[in-house]
């Protein structure tokens, strides 16, 4: 037995599944917009922060340079003496600077410090601002110039960076607040924009839903906006117009074909009925014609069911009831042929469907099974609610499908060679019609792998008994 599993799937996705997707897309778009705006704002503020920091540092350096220039002028006049007087004066005035002049032995000559800061290296002996160094002292940063003047007099001049740090801290706080505000504003704007975009797309989606529900003439009201969405709507409308026209043409064509074929057939039947004395021949001819019409109707039924696939026009139908009725019609035929028919039909299972089409499916499947099974074979119809779907299963223990035919069993005009050899009549449209009708109902059609015979399963979307099913 072939281990391949043939699955003829016919499922229509339901539009109601798409709701959460839409909301996700809105939020995603809003988040992306907010992140983009926030990133740009952060970049801009970062640059500005750098600029302010550099400028403030430069200002401190300039102040330090001015001090150094002043002390250099005094040193030029009277060397250490003048320097010592000036520093003592400045230290006494308490300007918040760091000043220190020492003698060769390490004694403090003048300044605001009690001794040379530990670990601070003296760099050079001139009064230029470079090289300057940053040191931490008393809980704040200082920009300091440490020198050893000619003759071994250490000199330290520093300016506090506290004002710079305070300004920068204030700036950072302001920027953080601003960034939060930008984030909120961007997210809000993004959400609104996304909602607007999704609203426009939602209009088109709602239209598609209505069309899918069978209203081919549904269109969006109001004028088209002169943008991409308007263009999208125009395109969708053009496509719908085309589909509607094609559909109408198809229906008209199939009606015309029916008329043009059946009218001459009708004349033939009338003439045949007037023939006398050849009853057997006339009966055979009429049976042939009836067979041809059945095949022809099946073809039209298939194309109609395919054209209406996923469309509306379906009503709540008692699947259990229809299946039981058709079963009841065929059961005696199966019994007469020596089959062992058995039905397990759970009552009251409702589906959204077309009663005639469902009856045709059950009749076709039963007719098929009875045709192929022989005396002693079992034939079991099961209608049951299973996994959220209403399942119709017909299992027989007959010859099953020949290997290699499982894949195309549901194609039009597929017939097994052995049937032709055995003289079993048929046109190979029964199962094709079953597939088309299953698709019309959004039912999943499967041929489960079984040890013996053929099992056909149709899983209809369930409809709650109050008619408020998910497929509504």
């Amino acid at each position, binding site marked *: 037995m072939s281990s391949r599993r043939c699955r003829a799937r016919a499922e229509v996705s339901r539009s109601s599944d798409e709701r959460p997707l839409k909301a996700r897309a809105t939020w995603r778009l809003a988040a992306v917009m907010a992140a983009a705006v926030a990133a740009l704002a952060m970049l801009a503020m970062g640059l500005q922060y750098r600029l302010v920091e550099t400028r403030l540092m430069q200002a401190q350096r300039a102040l330090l340079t001015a001090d150094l220039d002043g002390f250099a002028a005094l040193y030029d006049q009277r060397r250490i003496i003048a320097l010592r007087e000036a520093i003592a004066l400045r230290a006494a005035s308490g300007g918040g600077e760091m000043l220190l002049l020492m003698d060769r032995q390490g004694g403090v000559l003048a300044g605001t410090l009690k001794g040379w800061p530990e670990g601070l290296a003296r760099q050079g002996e001139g009064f230029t601002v470079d090289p300057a160094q940053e040191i931490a002292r008393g809980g704040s940063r200082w920009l300091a110039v440490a020198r050893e003047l000619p003759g071994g007099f250490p000199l330290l001049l520093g300016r506090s960076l506290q004002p710079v740090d305070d300004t920068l801290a204030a700036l950072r706080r302001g920027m953080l607040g601003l960034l939060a505000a930008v984030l909120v504003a961007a997210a809000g704007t993004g959400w609104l924009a996304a909602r607007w975009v999704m609203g426009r797309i939602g209009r088109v989606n709602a239209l598609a839903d209505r069309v899918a529900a069978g209203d081919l003439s549904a269109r969006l009201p109001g004028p088209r906006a002169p943008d991409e969405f308007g263009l999208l709507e125009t395109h969708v409308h053009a496509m719908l117009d085309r589909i509607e026209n094609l559909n109408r043409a198809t229906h008209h064509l199939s009606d015309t074909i029916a008329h043009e074929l059946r009218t001459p057939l009708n004349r033939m039947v009338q003439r045949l009925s007037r023939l006398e004395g050849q009853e057997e021949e006339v009966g055979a001819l009429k049976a042939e014609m009836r067979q041809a019409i*059945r095949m022809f109707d099946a073809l039209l039924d298939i194309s109609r069911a395919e054209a209406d696939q996923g469309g509306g026009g379906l009503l709540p139908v008692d699947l259990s009831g229809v299946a039981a009725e058709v079963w009841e*019609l065929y059961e005696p035929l199966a019994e007469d042929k020596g089959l062992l028919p058995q039905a397990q039909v759970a009552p009251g299972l409702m589906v959204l469907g077309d009663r005639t089409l469902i009856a045709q499916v059950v009749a076709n499947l039963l007719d098929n099974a009875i045709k192929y099974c022989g005396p002693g074979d079992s034939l079991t119809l099961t209608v049951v609610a299973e996994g959220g779907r209403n399942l119709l299963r017909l299992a027989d223990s007959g010859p099953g499908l020949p290997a290699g035919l499982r894949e195309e069993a549901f194609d039009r005009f597929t017939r097994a060679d052995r049937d032709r050899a055995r003289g079993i009549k048929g046109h190979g449209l029964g199962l094709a019609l079953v597939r088309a009708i299953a698709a019309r109902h959004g039912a999943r059609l499967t041929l489960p792998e079984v040890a013996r015979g053929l099992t056909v399963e149709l899983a209809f979307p369930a409809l709650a008994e109050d008619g408020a099913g998910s497929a509504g």
Partner: protein
Amino acid sequence: MTDSIPTPAAEADGRILIVEDDPETAAAVASVVRDLGCTPVHRGTLDEGVAEAAAGGYRVIVLDRMLPGGDGVEAMARIRAGGSGALILILSALGRAAQRVEGLEKGADDYLPKPFEPEELRARLRALLRRGTMQVLDNDLMAFGDLEIRLKARTVHVKLTHVPVSPKEFELITYFARHSGQLVTRMQLLENVWNLHFDPGTNVVDVHVGRLRRKLEEAGSHAIQTARGEGYVFAPLPGAG
């Protein structure tokens, strides 16, 4: 032969309007109408047909669908609005199950697809003519000689002996009884007893009728007889058998 069944007087003398654009089909229908003892009147377009129906006096209208001027099914409302109380039989090439159901749902009294057997049309026209005159069955009992059908109890008795029938067989014998003496075709049974409007290919109905017939015969009634080719006749009164 079906012709041997006596035609009740009430069925004769009716006028039947045929709205049909194919002359050959119209002639075939007219011939069936004359067989029934009625007078055929033929119109070739929808508008003429609707006007003629309004002119009145028809018991049955045999209406085509794809006519010059439109669809007969869509014109039924106009015919009714014109004051015609005639029963309407749609006779159309649009014979798929869905189209038949559509026609019946839109108010047709019967729907026969083309090509049709003259016997089939005759049986259906006769049923319609009969329906027009049939008295309301308000009593519980339908009695045909020694065969009795009790509607409320849903039981069948032959010579006062109870004949056990399934619910479907009861519906079957009731339908036969309502059309006693007439040819009843398989298609009519399928449509009226099983409410199915497609040709199942195999003669599933025969098996059911066969079982019912055997049950009646075992009880001593030969009420159901096979009519040549097309169906059955319920003729329970003695003299027929």
